[in-house]
């Protein structure tokens, strides 16, 4: 009988604990209510956002951010890459930047060499190498998928999809198992194998410093876009090939661009629901 009682009580307490976890009620301790009197479940989102940009921005659920890239306009200068690296506190010693630019040849698909070496020389060097005649350029980064495989597989919940559609990573929660890296079809995620070192004068205070041993990727510059400014890659683009905006708003620039032009998404057949759109109106419109 004793054994039976033991099983009964332990099963009961496990059930209670789980209940407490999901309901968030005062099952096992004091009621946790923050200053505003909201339930602790909601304040969790706040904490996450704070961990991401260090300033405590909160996702606005009425937004759904997306990025459209005009493939015909892109000249492959890699300024977006450089701006991203500079503004997101990515030191030279660390993994490559979050944006990658592929070189394509008309009629032959992708032929270009990737720009890893270019980047090591600095963006200005690669700028002089492009644009080449007869080549097209296609920048890729995190697609902030609607059905993100990386979020599904994360064993700790460190990576999550926020309410405005941005897929973010909590650098303090990530254990560096790299499952999300291998689950991403876009190879968008980077692992910080090296200990990040950045000179203090180059630090952007809006962005947390890079953490060693965790995974990171494009955040759609969450510290800027949630305050109404554009991501750094969009600001840095000299030809206006990048268009960032709210896909929910039918009057936004990105919506009108996508409504009036053909576009494609990368690997949409994998049911990831990518939020990067590649507009294909050719090169003719550029005079």
């Amino acid at each position, binding site marked *: 009988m004793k054994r039976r009682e033991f099983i009964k009580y332990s099963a009961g307490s496990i059930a209670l604990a*789980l209940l407490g*976890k*999901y309901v968030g009620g005062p099952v096992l301790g004091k009621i946790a209510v923050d200053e505003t009197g909201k339930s602790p479940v909601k304040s969790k989102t706040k904490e996450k956002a704070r961990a991401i940009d260090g300033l405590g921005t909160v996702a606005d659920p009425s937004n759904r951010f997306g990025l459209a890239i005009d493939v015909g306009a892109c000249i492959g200068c890699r300024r977006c890459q450089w701006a991203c690296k500079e503004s997101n506190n990515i030191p030279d010693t660390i*993994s*490559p930047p979050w944006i*990658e630019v*592929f070189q394509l040849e008309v009629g032959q*698909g*992708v032929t*270009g*060499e*990737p720009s*890893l070496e270019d980047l090591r020389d600095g963006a200005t060097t690669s700028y002089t190498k492009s644009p080449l005649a007869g080549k097209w350029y296609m920048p*890729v980064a995190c697609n902030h998928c609607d059905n993100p*495989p*990386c979020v*599904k*597989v*994360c*064993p*700790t*919940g*460190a990576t999550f999809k926020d309410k405005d559609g941005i897929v973010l990573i909590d650098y303090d*929660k*990530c*254990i*560096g*198992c*790299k*499952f999300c*890296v*291998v*689950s*991403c*079809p*876009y*190879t*968008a*995620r*980077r*692992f*910080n*194998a*090296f*200990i990040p070192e950045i000179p203090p004068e180059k630090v952007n205070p809006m962005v947390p410093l890079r953490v*060693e*041993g*965790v*995974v990171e990727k494009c955040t759609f510059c969450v510290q800027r876009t949630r305050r109404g400014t554009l991501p750094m890659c969009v600001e840095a683009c000299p030809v206006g090939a990048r268009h960032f905006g709210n896909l929910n708003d039918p009057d936004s620039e990105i919506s009108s661009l996508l409504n009036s032009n053909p576009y494609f998404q*990368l*690997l949409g057949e*994998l*049911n*990831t629901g990518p939020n990067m759109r590649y507009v294909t109106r050719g090169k003719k419109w550029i005079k």
Partner: protein
Amino acid sequence: MDQITIKSREERFLQPIHKQPKSESKLSPREVQFLRPILRTGKAFYVVIPALIVLVLWVLYAWYTQLTQGLSVTGLRTPVGAIWGLYITNFVFFVAISAAGIAIASGIRLFKLKDYIALARMAELATIFSLMMAGMSIVMSIGRPDRLFNLILNFPARLPSSPLIWDVMAVFVYLVFAITYLYIEMREDMARLVGKVKWGWLYKLLLPGYRIGERHRIEKIVFWASIFNFPIMFMMHTTVGWIFGLQVGRPGWYSTIFGPYFVLGAILTGMSVVVILAAIYRKAFQWEEFIRPVVFKGLSKFLMWMSILYLYFILSEFMTVTFAGPSGEQAVWESLTGGEFAPLFWLQNGALVIAFLLFFVNTVFKKAFRIGTTVIASCLVVFALWIVRFLIVVPSLLRPFLPFPTGSYNPSWVEWSLVGGVFAIEILLFMVFTKVFPIMPVTELMAEEEEGNHA
């Protein structure tokens, strides 16, 4: 009739601990044979143990290097190159070894396979130590081992969606189950040896609440545990397969075959490891009498079926991908069949085919049967299946969907050290256990023998 024999056995072997005489001479000649590793220490022991300890110290140094400098000391890179490498290969490999142990032990006890009883405990140990080493490989592979506890903190929230969490759960459940199983079935042996061998004091510490006549209840527990073992085993190995099989992110992984493929691979690896273990123990402690050739014959037959089935799975995958596979999958298979991984791939297939042929000859031509060939074939299988795991993990990572450069994966000295070290630690654990605890299930073997005498 049954009751009587059990009672008489009890009277003979299960005296209260404190009443047992404290001299080693009280061991019966049979028991002395079973307890050779505890009673005697050969020269080889004094050579191998220091060598292993030196290896383990080297591993600790390599691990220290990795912990202080991060994974930059390995060959793992993003986005170009592989981010999962030898550590994950080793993880999958060791999880696979763990299949056999408890499966064999449970099978022996459920179906009363008397000839195989001598293998039961070494098989269980293979499970326990391999699972420990699998866990260690995971800790080695992650970037922030200091945050490992996050896995447990977020367990309930992540359970619905993360295959890795399923796997963590499966490994934990299986490890706890295996240790409990081993402990419960070993109580009887420890009880009978208290006061008879030098480790008696340790056994006494490990036997709280021991009562005479416990054996009937333990037999019942072991029976039910043996039944429950099989679903746990399937769960375990299927979830490892699903780590890869449920991912669309890399070509070559997303596949329905991966669950069964991994279960079969695990059975094949585990059984082969048990064959090798049995042969080593048989040779080292002159146990030819207890581990008879019929054991190797039986395992050889079983492994013949398993290895041909595994080859069939490989063929099935090959056909599907080459005939109808999308371009991403084709690229991975090209790297296997004709690209940079071709030598490994064909070595693996060749080893598996040769192993199958050896098992086949052993089984079909009764006169040609040799224990040696069985062991060689098992070694080939273990070798081939380590490569299989490597070729599941790495080539897919070197062929991403987007046109990133192919890159290459060059494991660093740290990785090789840690991978080798995991094997060294496993062997060390085996040797220490053999020295301290009875590796043969003494009570069960003695009972078997008695029944044999009666019949």
